[in-house]
């Protein structure tokens, strides 16, 4: 019994030794596994993990590139970048939304309109899209937010640049404005730059169409950060490459003057260098302030803009279409000359023209008039008679050669090109024959014909210079324009007529330039908005039914250099509303002091300059209930 037990005990000892070796082997095997795995990670995958460690350690912040400037033909700034302090919210990282916004509103003294806008944008924001809280902050307020950052997750204060338009509303339609990238734009390219706080893209006007040139290359700031985002130190920083500046043909002083001179009216002024086609001025008022659009527009301001019957959102110079009225008479004159009508042949005006059993009225009883006096007096009867003689199909091509109905290759998001009707057009559009009464309406710029103020200015430029000038907004060297197909004698006849309009006994003699040696020639136009009802004739009554006032002109008469068009919506008459503005704008080119004196007197009566009037208007709108603006006003 005892012997058997001893033997078994020895057996167990033997088993123990064998199994101890086995356990030691297993331990060694596991040790080797760890060693192999570690070597694999640290040697084979070393590069990958080094990169990961580096991307942990280094926080790359994108520095949005400074946008290229817009400068005018003399190098004066039109759109610049202003260094500013800004605060944004990254919705993804926001924790206590209402509390955070409330704290920010307190720290930054935000208006209720701003708070409202922030809440609305936060609600609609995709998580990655930064929502601007405030820009253009002073250092004290910026610092107040910066020190509270640990309590405000999702809030990012930054030092950056914001777009600045020194001219404010005057250049809104011309330049456009910038704004944060929309969700669709980001989905399309997914570039991280697009959602960097402070980065803006062009939303309208030249800012939008020239985006590629203006954008520039982003820089990168590298900082060493802890896992909790605390910055340890700055590493090497790559600076941004600013976008290229764009030099425009605009003369910004003239442009600003024209915008101011439009005053309370809704209208546009376009001025050309008639020898080159350079657009010197393209003012359209009233207009939104691109500075406030670029900072994110508030509810009240949006209501103010949208509720205005003067349509501040529309670029009237390019996108407004109006019946050109009598400003078209020089076009008809050129067509008549081409058809062999002697300019000295007279037509007797008895205050109207009978076609069948219908009388087409003239504005006066002008007696016997030839072409020059007909232009001077804006006599409808002469043009009815001669227009009927040659037919409108002979007039329409002249209008087209002078720029009417044409679209020009310009970097603006949209231009409307109107209609120059003829018999083929009418057949195509209405399936009807062209009638003689259509001719009579069209020849005085009523009826089917419509044109933009921009086209009217092109027309004035081409008539005055005799050159087939192409409008241009970007300043660059170009080939000299070809001459028009009209002989100089023909052009001289209509230029004479236009000279008499201002300097003879014409419709715009009150708008004669008060300058030595420099005279202006022009043509007034008054366009009906609706059919003449009784004796009212669109000269009174509700604003929106009043006649449009138009004026095309050029100066100096002796050697034309500048051509312009002025269109005043519901201004009741070209001589009354448009010609005085043209006179002041052209005066500004030669005698700034005189022009400014005239403007300042007017502005005193209007309640201040553009910015002052807009501020006053905004103040009266405040406190009124308003519907929220859409996220992207351009859509």
């Amino acid at each position, binding site marked *: 019994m005892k012997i*058997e*037990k001893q033997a*078994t*005990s020895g*057996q*167990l*000892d033997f*088993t*123990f*030794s064998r*199994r*101890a070796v086995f*356990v*030691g082997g297993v*331990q*060694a095997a*596991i*040790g080797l*596994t*760890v*060693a192999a*795995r*570690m*070597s694999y*990670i*640290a*040697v084979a*995958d*070393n590069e*990958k*993990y*080094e990169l*990961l*460690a*580096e991307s*942990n*350690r280094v926080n790359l912040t994108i520095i949005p590139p400074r946008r290229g400037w817009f400068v005018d033909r003399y190098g004066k700034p039109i759109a610049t970048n202003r260094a500013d302090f800004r605060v944004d919210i990254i919705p993804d990282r926001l924790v206590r939304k209402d509390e955070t916004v409330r704290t920010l509103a307190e720290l930054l003294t935000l208006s209720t309109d701003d708070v409202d806008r922030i809440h609305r944008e936060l609600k609609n924001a995709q998580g990655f899209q930064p929502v601007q809280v405030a820009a253009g902050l002073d250092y004290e307020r910026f610092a107040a937010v910066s020190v509270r950052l640990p309590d405000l997750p999702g809030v990012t204060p930054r030092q950056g640049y914001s777009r600045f338009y020194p001219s404010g509303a005057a250049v809104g339609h011309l330049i456009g404005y910038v704004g944060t990238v929309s969700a669709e734009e980001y989905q399309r390219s997914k570039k991280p730059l697009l959602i960097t706080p402070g980065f803006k893209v062009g939303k309208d006007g030249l800012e939008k169409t020239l985006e590629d040139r203006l954008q520039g290359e982003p820089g990168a700031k590298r900082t*060493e*950060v*802890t*896992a*909790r985002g605390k910055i*340890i130190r700055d590493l090497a920083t790559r600076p941004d490459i600013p976008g290229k500046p764009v030099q425009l043909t605009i003369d910004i002083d003239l442009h600003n003057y024209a915008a101011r001179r439009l005053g309370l009216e809704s209208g546009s002024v376009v001025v050309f260098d008639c020898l080159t086609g350079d657009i010197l001025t393209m003012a359209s008022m009233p207009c939104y302030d691109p500075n406030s659009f670029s900072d994110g527009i508030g509810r009240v301001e949006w209501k103010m803009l949208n509720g205005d019957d003067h349509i501040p959102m529309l670029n009237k110079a390019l996108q407004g279409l109006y019946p050109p009225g009598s400003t078209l008479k020089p076009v008809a004159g050129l067509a008549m000359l081409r058809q062999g009508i002697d300019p000295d042949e007279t037509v007797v005006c008895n205050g109207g023209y009978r076609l069948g059993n219908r009388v087409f009225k003239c504005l006066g009883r002008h007696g016997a008039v030839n072409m020059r006096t007909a232009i001077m007096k804006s006599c409808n009867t002469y043009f009815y008679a001669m227009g009927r003689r040659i037919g409108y199909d002979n007039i329409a091509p002249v209008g087209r050669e002078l720029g009417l109905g044409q679209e020009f290759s310009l970097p603006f998001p949209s231009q409307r090109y109107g209609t120059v009707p003829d018999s083929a057009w009418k057949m195509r559009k209405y399936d009807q024959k062209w009638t003689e009464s259509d001719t009579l309406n069209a020849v005085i710029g009523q009826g089917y014909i419509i044109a933009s103020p921009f086209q009217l200015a092109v027309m004035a430029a081409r008539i005055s210079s005799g050159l087939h000038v192409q409008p241009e907004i970007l300043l660059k060297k170009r080939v000299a324009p070809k001459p028009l197909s009209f002989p100089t004698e023909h052009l001289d006849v209509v230029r004479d007529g236009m000279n008499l309009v201002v300097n003879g006994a014409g419709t715009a003699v009150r708008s004669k330039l008060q300058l030595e040696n420099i005279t202006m020639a022009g043509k007034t136009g008054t366009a009906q908005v609706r059919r003449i009802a009784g004796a009212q004739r669109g000269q009174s009554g509700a604003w929106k039914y009043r006649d449009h006032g138009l004026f095309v002109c050029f100066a100096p008469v002796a050697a034309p250099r500048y051509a312009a068009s002025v269109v005043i919506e519901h201004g009741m008459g070209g001589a009354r509303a448009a010609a005085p503005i043209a006179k002041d704008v052209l005066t500004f080119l030669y005698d700034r002091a005189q022009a400014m004196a005239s403007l300042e007197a007017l502005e005193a009566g209007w309640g201040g300059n553009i910015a002052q009037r807009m501020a006053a208007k905004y103040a009266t709108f405040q406190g009124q209930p308003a519907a929220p603006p859409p996220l992207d006003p351009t859509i």
Partner: protein
Amino acid sequence: MNGIVPAPIAALPWRVIFILMALVGFGATVLYSAAGGHLEPWAGKHVLRFIALLVLAIAMSRMPQGFWKSITFPLYLLLLLLLVVVELMGFVGGGSQRWINLGFITLQPSELMKPAMVLAAAWFFDRLPPNRIYGIEAIWPLFLILILPSAMVIIQPDFDAAIAYAFGLGVVGFMAGLPLIYFIGAGAALAVVAPLVYFFGMKAYQQDRVLIFLNPENDPLGAGYHITQSKIAIGSGGIFGKGFGNGTQSYLDYLPEGHTDFVFATMAEEWGIVGGFFILFLYFMLMRWGLNVAVQSKTRYGKLVAAGLTCTIFFYIMINLLMVVGLAPVAGIPLPFVSHGGSSMLTMMLCVGIIMSIERHPGSKHGQFQ
């Protein structure tokens, strides 16, 4: 020996003391760097704690084997009682509690139970007549020893501790000569039971740990963060490391628990695989020493205790290292002698102290009959 060193000092087990000093010293170096080049808050304490516990371990080594045998059962019962006490304290306190604060040190009964479990198993097999090793009598008491403490820690819930107990008992049973078929059968059963445990026995956070272990990249910023960051630290260290004090992962807080559970990753980032191999070598030496003591011991109790405790230390090393290199799920198990932490150091040094005692008192072949 020569006359300069007094005999009691020369008689100390210098072999293992050197191994431990190397491990603790290297650990302290890493902790010093992890604290940004300061002794506070980890490195200084780490060394002081080791010195105090080393004195304790040397004192323990003076105890004869019979002493350990005689206190095994009372110790086991005491710890079981303490487990109930912490459970009740947690119940009263309204949360899970695992330790008792004694002021100068926090006692974690579930931790101390790991070596106690090994002692209890060795004690049982020592008393079991050798010819009964193949019978059912060899099995059920073992389960009884295992089941009560395991139940107590699982409701804490501390699943890792229960696995450690089972591992300790299993190793002792294996070394005691239980038939191999049990272990093969248990392995097969585990393969069947593991999925069931996963789906029905685990809490959501434990399930997460397993899932994330299987695919850490799925959740790189959530719970998979630990493993991912640990691999980045080791991988970016390369062969020679980034140099002492240059570990960005630990400095900039990307590596969580860089001074406790993931101290190996902190080390590897600065010392590379060279440092890793050094630590592995020290552990190899430690294991060799422990198993040698087991083989050299003349008594069955001594053999089983030394082997079981060595494997308990090994269990910590294995789970921690496999976790840190991404081969095992994240478990709250520190790296012995390197990680900062009093509780695990205490357990490890108790194990070492008892093994040292067995080394000093190997006993005699017939000791059990005297």
